[in-house]
């Protein structure tokens, strides 16, 4: 007992070790100014999402607190000090709606990826680890999903279900998991070749233990990177569905839907489409910057 205590006394200390790790991460990260910019953009959007009610000049125009407001008498006002991004066909402040739209987009991104990862990663793990017929079958199924463009499949799924927001998210997740399955599968295949996996079997560990202790931690890096890149894409696909008329219900502001509605009023009311589109662009850009930085940091290649 005393011995084990002396052992810990030699120890550089957990905190210090953590800091060391962190330092390295920070160092790699600092090398890449774009990823810092990305991080800033994302923090910016998260900030906006949290504090939207306080930042937005007309929170009710975005349906805040279930007290949606309309001002048909102010419809289609062009951008001004009062309405930074102008107003829409119901006289609502587009600026406020764009700000509130952040909440939805982030939520979609998070939910979609959480769902996609929780289906795709286990499938990939199992297929990769077991290999053989089961693995083959699982991956063939995955490939079938992959052969339909995500947007098309999501469109079909979200129509098959009732077209509300939850189902849109489900639909996107349904087309997204195969990418994670494939990525995980590929990673598992290469990690599986590592001797430490065999070693784990060699000391008598069960498959589950091997998968979770030895394999999973080693495939997390590319998955994390892909997730951060995919946040942007998921938001983009959701916006595309919104654009095609499947998205959040009014008056909830949804960027894709706004772009789509604004299109009817082009080019006269150009601001209607332009600003929500810009928001999508920025947030996706932010996630791409970040993801790319992470990719450099973890030094992994994901598609």
């Amino acid at each position, binding site marked *: 007992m005393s*011995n*084990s205590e002396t052992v810990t006394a030699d120890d550089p200390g957990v905190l210090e070790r953590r800091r060391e790790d962190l330092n390295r991460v920070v160092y790699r990260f600092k090398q890449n100014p774009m990823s810092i910019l990305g991080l800033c953009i994302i923090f910016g959007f998260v900030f906006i999402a949290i504090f939207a009610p306080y930042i937005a000049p007309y929170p009710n125009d975005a349906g805040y607190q279930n007290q949606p407001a309309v001002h048909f008498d102010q419809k289609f006002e062009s951008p001004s000090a009062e309405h930074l991004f102008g107003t829409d066909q119901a006289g609502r402040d587009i600026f406020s709606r764009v700000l509130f739209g952040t909440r939805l987009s982030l939520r979609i991104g998070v939910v979609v990826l959480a769902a996609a990862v929780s289906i795709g990663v286990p499938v990939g793990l199992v297929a990769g680890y077991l290999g053989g017929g089961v693995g083959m079958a699982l991956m063939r199924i995955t490939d079938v999903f992959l052969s339909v463009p995500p947007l098309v499949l999501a469109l079909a799924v979200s129509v098959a279900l009732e077209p509300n927001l939850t189902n849109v998210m489900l639909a996107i997740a349904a087309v997204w998991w195969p990418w994670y399955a494939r990525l995980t599968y590929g990673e598992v295949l290469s990690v599986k070749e590592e001797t*430490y996996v065999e070693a784990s079997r060699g000391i*008598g560990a069960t498959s589950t233990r091997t998968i979770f*202790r030895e394999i999973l931690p080693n495939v997390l890096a590319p998955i994390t990177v892909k997730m951060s890149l995919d946040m942007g894409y998921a938001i983009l696909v959701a916006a595309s569905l919104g654009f095609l008329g499947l998205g959040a219900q009014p008056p909830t502001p949804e960027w894709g839907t706004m772009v789509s509605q604004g299109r009817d009023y082009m080019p006269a009311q150009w601001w209607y489409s332009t600003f929500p589109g810009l928001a999508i662009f920025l947030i996706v850009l932010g996630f791409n910057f970040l993801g790319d930085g992470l990719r450099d940091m973890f030094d992994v290649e994901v598609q």
Partner: protein
Amino acid sequence: MSGDPLVSVRNLEKYYPVDTGLFSRTESYVKAVDGVSFDIMPGETFAVVGESGCGKTTLGKTVARLYEATGGTIAFEGQDITDLDGKALRQLRRDIQVVYQDPSSSLNPRRRIGAIVKEPLAVHDVGTKAERDERVAELLRRVDLPVEFRHRYPNALSGGQKQRVAIARALAVEPKFVVLDEPTSALDVSVQAKVISLLDDLQDELDLTYLLISHDLSLVKNVADRIGVMYLGNLMEVTDSRTLFENPVNPYTEQLLSAIPVVESGEQSLKPPSVEVRGETPDPKDPPSGCPFHPRCHRAFDACDAVDPELVEVEDGHQTRCLHDPGPKAEAVAEHRSDDVTQEGVTED
């Protein structure tokens, strides 16, 4: 040799299916291990040497039950373990451990040394948490590593240190039999020497039995009690280490020995007279007919490409696999032996 062997391998086979493409239902195999038999006595070091791709690793891992044998039997402490599975197999793993060739890839880069060494204890649910920690410290000390290394990640260790960690892990559950798969081939010589002497000490101390796999004849000569020389999935010659160097009877052993670069002038005299080494190891998917070694053999004669020799005992405890010592296949050889051809007559095909 006396007493019962700890490990007894009979006619062990391990074939890898080869995908030969269109429509064929994997009828073709790489016969990585093709009918190998040997015994290992308790406390002894049995070494297998051979060139790259000859099936050494496959043999070692099949014996350690990491791979399923295609045929043959493996007995451990007199008990047939060829078909153990499930819990019984996991139990067996406490007795049989493996140390791998590449120390970098045999340690999970995302786990700390402490956790890696503790893993077998956790798997087999040995002791309380405190006891396990204690045991890990002890193990690290035993392999001459500072105890505080337990908090490091493998990539902060040098190759030799990693290999020590791997050894500590293998020893954690007090195995009786350890398969050492080229444990030092990834290390520098100055480090290799240390690891080898560590393994040697451990063997004496813990009463371990080793199956040592290596391609380095000089190394093997110094550490092994008995040696098997392997070529294309077959054991070509098996004997104790002194005899192998003093009196090699198999032409392949001769070639191997004569090709060793030596550093001391004294060594030169221990090598057999220089023979010409020809060709390279054939494609294991498409092995030659007859004796697998005949296309490269400096002593081949025309029977060699027709008759596959068997491992026969030429003297007590000294086996070889060559038509010059034909054993039961004598008649078949005689049939083919039209003339006393030794050198010419066989060409690569």
